[in-house]
């Protein structure tokens, strides 16, 4: 072995050891745990541990709270996800507008919510959402809209959390879109303009196809992030009212750390992981296909 490869192994050893012990190991253990009935009795005495095979997964299928949690989480991914990506793209286009002065200041302002502590801003939004003296209802009231019980009404609670999440996150994807927009060569826009393409046509036929790889990255990142929804419902609604904002990770947290059903909780964690992998791979495949349609062989600039 050369000195260089010995040094290489030595250099990666600390990080890989830590990752193996505190990340890879626990992930594998979660799979094993999911096949056991590890619960509060097992914590007291390991001899209570029994292998139950796929029982936990079977129980998950019939558990109405699990179905509720998955429905809520998927709603978040499918509704709040595209909404947040749309807001991010709009903000990026705005920042990219040639006429805009003070670009750096606007960029910083739009990005600010991303770095804030979620718990702190969730606390702030809880007060903004207050049905009687919250800022939002008072503003809406000035426009003649009757008060909405944002966090207390099962129909509004999840959309309210989505609004907070979009506000908190859009700046991140916005930056990614800005980088993608800046990578588009100006000559493509010039060529389109010479062909008489208006603003919308240039956006539709130059910007969108050229941003395809960016959309993929942003889509996967956002999906994975929203599937892990936890702190918003934990701080603002505790999953209520009537489980309207119960998310998969919140349910896992409750099963695992409130009721100490670690076997059942791990099974839940694994279904979540499976969802993340399936959705990411599907998004990748979908994007590949639409790329092929947008740019038939040789047609890509």
């Amino acid at each position, binding site marked *: 072995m050369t000195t260089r490869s010995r040094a*290489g192994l030595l*250099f990666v050893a600390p990080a890989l050891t830590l990752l193996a012990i505190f990340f890879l190991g626990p992930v594998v253990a979660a799979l094993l745990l999911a096949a056991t009935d590890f619960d509060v009795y097992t914590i007291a005495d390991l001899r209570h541990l029994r292998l139950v095979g796929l029982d936990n997964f079977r129980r998950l299928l019939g558990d109405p709270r699990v179905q509720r949690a998955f429905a809520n989480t998927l709603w978040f991914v499918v509704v709040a996800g595209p909404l947040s990506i749309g807001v991010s793209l709009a903000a990026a286009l705005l920042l990219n507008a040639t006429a805009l002065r003070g670009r750096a200041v606007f960029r910083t302002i739009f990005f600010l919510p991303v770095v804030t502590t979620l718990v702190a801003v969730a606390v702030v939004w809880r007060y903004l959402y207050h049905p009687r003296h919250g800022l939002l209802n008072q503003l809406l009231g000035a426009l003649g809209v009757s008060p909405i019980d944002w966090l207390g009404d099962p129909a509004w609670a999840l959309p309210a959390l989505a609004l907070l999440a979009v506000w908190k996150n859009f700046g991140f994807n916005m930056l990614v879109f800005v980088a993608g927009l800046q990578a588009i060569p100006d000559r493509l826009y010039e060529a389109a303009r010479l062909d008489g393409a208006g603003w919308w046509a240039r956006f539709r036929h130059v910007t969108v196809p050229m941003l395809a790889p960016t959309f993929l990255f942003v889509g996967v990142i956002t999906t994975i992030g929203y599937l892990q929804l936890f702190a918003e419902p934990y701080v603002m609604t505790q999953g209520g009212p009537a489980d309207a904002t119960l998310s998969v990770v919140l349910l896992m947290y409750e099963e695992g750390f409130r009721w100490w059903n670690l076997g059942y909780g791990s099974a839940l964690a694994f279904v979540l992981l499976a969802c993340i992998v399936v959705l990411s791979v599907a998004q990748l495949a979908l994007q590949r296909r639409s790329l092929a349609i947008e740019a038939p062989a040789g047609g890509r600039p």
Partner: protein
Amino acid sequence: MRRALGAVAVHAVALAAATLTLLPLVWMVSASFMPAGEAGAVPLRLWPSAPTLEHYRALFARLDLGRHLAASAGLATATTLIALACNTLAGYAFAKLPFPGREAVFRGLLAALLVPGQVAMLPLFLLVRTLGLVDTFLGVLVPGMASVFGIFLVRQYARGIPDGILDAARVDGAGEGRVFLRVALPLCAPILITLAVFAFLGAWNDFIWPLVVLADERRYTLPVALANLVGEHVQDTELVMAGAVLTVAPVIVLFLALQRWYVAGITSGSLKE
């Protein structure tokens, strides 16, 4: 004429969007200085009638927030330093020091990027419990010490270092440790700042893991203490807002000071390959 109108429209939209984005944060700061009860006034008050520091004083004097501030700052700093050391060494090796199985291991790490931390959380808690680290700061620290994303970030950057510079140092008789410390590390300075900001913000803002590991209220980090404060003082809007300001202000200041590197990290992470 049309162009001028367009410019006005762009600025109007940008100003409106900036106002909406800042509104929750501005209200948070403003409400934290309002006399008790004023934040819930109808009609709405945007500014305090008589600005007061009483809530900040109460937080430090009565509710011992200084202790939680110290816990958060200490934990985030320690996480940052350890993560910097581990991830930089590993990232550099993955970029510049060929060793058997390197590419296979790296592909494995990339796949691990998809796996959310929550999947590991329940067994990780059992592990931390077995190690006797429940309700200790070390227990909070443990999962953040090395990160796949950090290794990835450093590797992408270190690949840009020309091999010739490293080889020149080797010819001069420098060992690999010295080549790394004296030649590679200074060249990696920008990405180290990026990594440090990511690690610090991540550790400071983390909620679920400190919530799980810490039991004794006196050891709570700021976000956990804040969530606790809301539970006990939900009626004291102004007091809670002061707590939120203290939780958010340090990360906002850090971001404003170092945003150039933070932004560079996000865009370099997304434009890979």
